[in-house]
């Protein structure tokens, strides 16, 4: 995917990342945590133009949950409110037994997509989120069994190398779909040149999604639009609409990027169009 796709007015798939697994209402009181809140947030985001919702589960205290039952409650709440959307479950977690990382895949029906974190990340001062090759392979195997398309989450260049290594080990259905992530910590530094390098190092014919954390969300979504990619926005990745101004919702962030897409001449993909693009 390149600037050519932008010039060709290829549709853009907008993913709304509604909740996340790191911060919660203490960062932004508008961040949804309960199934009802997430369902309502998904409905608003879809109305604003999102074709995909990226879902994490929480307990009522805001604390993280990986339970199938909690993801089921969220999916049911989303489907009660939304006619059509691609649901993408997160399998990401820190310090969690590997078996539990599979639980988000086991809803009925399964999600159409699920995330696959491509390598380790340092957290705080004394912690690492481990994503071993064995776990990646195990999660991918179950995704294949359940007809779930993986969203490969690429936090840095090492993880991009792991994408190629995964393709050497396993068959991934075309098109390969990778989210290129930019920000601080163990994540690729948020510089436009780094996005262009990452795109050039993707597997041939891969589709990329663009994710910038925090204040990088809007500029990297803009770059993604111009370089023919897909974009992800939402409160999981950024709780602010502008400097010092908390976002009111993920829908507000989706609305801004869909308005920008239309201004730039890229149509916003419906869920049906997104399924065609992603091979779902």
């Amino acid at each position, binding site marked *: 995917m390149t600037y050519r796709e932008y010039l060709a007015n290829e549709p853009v798939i907008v993913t709304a990342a509604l909740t996340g*697994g*790191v*911060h*919660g*209402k*203490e*960062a932004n*009181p508008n961040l949804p945590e309960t199934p009802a809140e997430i369902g309502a947030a998904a409905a608003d985001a879809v109305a604003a133009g999102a074709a995909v919702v990226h879902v994490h589960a*929480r307990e*009522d*205290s*805001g*604390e*993280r949950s990986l339970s199938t039952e909690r993801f089921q409650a969220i999916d049911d709440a989303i489907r009660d409110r939304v006619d059509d959307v691609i649901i993408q479950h997160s399998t990401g977690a*820190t*310090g*969690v*037994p590997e078996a*539990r990382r599979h639980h988000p895949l086991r809803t009925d029906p399964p999600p159409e997509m699920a995330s696959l974190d491509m390598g380790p990340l340092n*957290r*705080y*001062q*004394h*912690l690492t989120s481990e994503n071993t090759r064995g776990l990646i392979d195990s999660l991918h195997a179950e995704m294949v069994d359940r007809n779930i398309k993986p969203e490969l989450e690429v936090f840095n260049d090492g993880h991009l190398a792991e994408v190629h290594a995964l393709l050497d080990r396993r068959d991934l259905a075309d098109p390969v779909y990778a989210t290129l992530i930019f920000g601080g910590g163990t994540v690729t530094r948020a510089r436009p040149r780094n996005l262009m390098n990452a795109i050039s190092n993707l597997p041939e014919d891969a589709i990329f999604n663009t994710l910038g954390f925090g204040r990088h969300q809007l500029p990297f979504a803009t770059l993604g639009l111009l370089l023919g990619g897909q974009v992800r926005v939402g409160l999981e990745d950024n709780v602010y609409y502008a400097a010092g101004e908390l976002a009111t919702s993920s829908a507000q962030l989706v609305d801004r990027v869909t308005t920008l897409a239309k201004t730039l001449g890229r149509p916003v993909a419906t869920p049906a169009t997104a399924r065609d693009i992603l091979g779902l």
Partner: protein
Amino acid sequence: MTCPRLEYRRAANGREFETARAYCTVADRFVQPLRADICTDRYALDHADHCEIYRRHVAEE
């Protein structure tokens, strides 16, 4: 055993929530849900090993 400096509060520092949330009495703030797993020693996490706030607090006591 969870961190002895963890509390669950519905309100603090001028903020209020419907459900009580994890609160660090060392840092005097509500903690991120990711950190709350460390506070509660959930899964393989352990506040004595993984929390820099607790470790610094113990070192200073």
